[in-house]
């Protein structure tokens, strides 16, 4: 929007060479009026709280984010600098080129924000703002009758009590311990064919929070 507004005045001058002056002036007035109206509306909504800025630099967990903060600072600094340079030149003119250093600076700032989000979403703690969650992991996706056990692990986020209860479906198809160790049925009594077993971990503190994982027993 900043660039559009600053270029609107210049465009009016450039257009005079090709079209009647009243057409270029009218176009510039319309563009300025529209962008000015949008700018005032945004400021009004921000001021009255209809555009909520309370979480402007916050993570989903509710904690303030340094990566968002530095991105905000650099965005404002570069925008203000551009305005100062354009407005102070006589006559006002857009810089012929943006220095590479500025582009690198904005690149560092933005990529740092993106990498920070990547790290955060790689960890259950980073997602804690999405409400309580249980996430199951297994050390293998299939086993055999009488074969090796499968160790399940449940990560609980957003609850004080991180313990879970384990259950399997079908209920009599092997067994699962309180630590999430699943033992497949013995080889002596296999059913007709491969079976998919659903393992469920449910948070003890909140039984509405659970996660499921399947394992193939063949």
């Amino acid at each position, binding site marked *: 929007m900043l660039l559009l507004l600053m270029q609107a005045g210049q465009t009016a001058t450039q257009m005079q060479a090709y079209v009647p002056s009243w057409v270029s002036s009218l176009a510039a007035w319309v563009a300025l009026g529209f962008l000015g109206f949008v700018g005032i509306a945004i400021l009004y909504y921000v001021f009255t709280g209809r555009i909520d800025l*309370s979480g402007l630099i916050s993570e989903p967990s*509710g904690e303030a984010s340094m990566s968002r903060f530095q991105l905000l600072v650099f965005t404002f600094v570069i925008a203000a600098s551009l305005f100062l*340079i354009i407005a102070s030149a006589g006559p006002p003119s857009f*810089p012929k080129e943006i220095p590479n*250093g500025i582009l690198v600076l904005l690149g560092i*700032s933005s990529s740092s924000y993106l990498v920070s989000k990547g*790290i955060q979403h790689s*960890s259950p703690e980073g997602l804690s703002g999405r409400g309580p969650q249980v996430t199951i992991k297994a050390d293998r996706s299939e086993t055999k009758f009488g074969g090796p056990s499968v160790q399940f692990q449940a990560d609980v986020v957003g609850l004080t009590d991180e313990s879970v209860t384990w259950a399997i479906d079908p209920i009599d198809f092997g067994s699962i311990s309180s630590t999430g160790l699943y033992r497949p049925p013995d080889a002596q009594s296999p059913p007709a064919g491969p079976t998919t077993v659903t393992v469920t971990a449910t948070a003890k503190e909140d039984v509405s929070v659970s996660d499921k994982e399947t394992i193939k027993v063949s």
Partner: protein
Amino acid sequence: MFTSTITWLAQTEVFIFLVGLGAIIVYRLLTGEINTNYLLYGRKKGGGRYFSPERLQLLLFTLGTAMFYLNDVLQHRTSGILPDVSPQTLALLGGSHALYLGGKAYMMLFKKSSKGE
């Protein structure tokens, strides 16, 4: 005459928008209406919080770089050219960000909270 009026109006609109938005954000940051809780705290794997020196150094480098650059712009504002950022400053800022991201990755992905945290 029309052109100069349009240019003046465009500058005024941008000025009001930038200053207005900036003033609202700074005011709300200072009064706490924009959340700044735990800005200098990180999370460990397991959920514990810790005071984070890597965030503090990033905050200082960010504000320092921003102020020096703005000062540079103010001194050369009539040149019509955006001042460049020196490679040394970029290297320092890049190192600061790398330290922040490295510290965050280590604490969040590898460093487990101990009891009581």
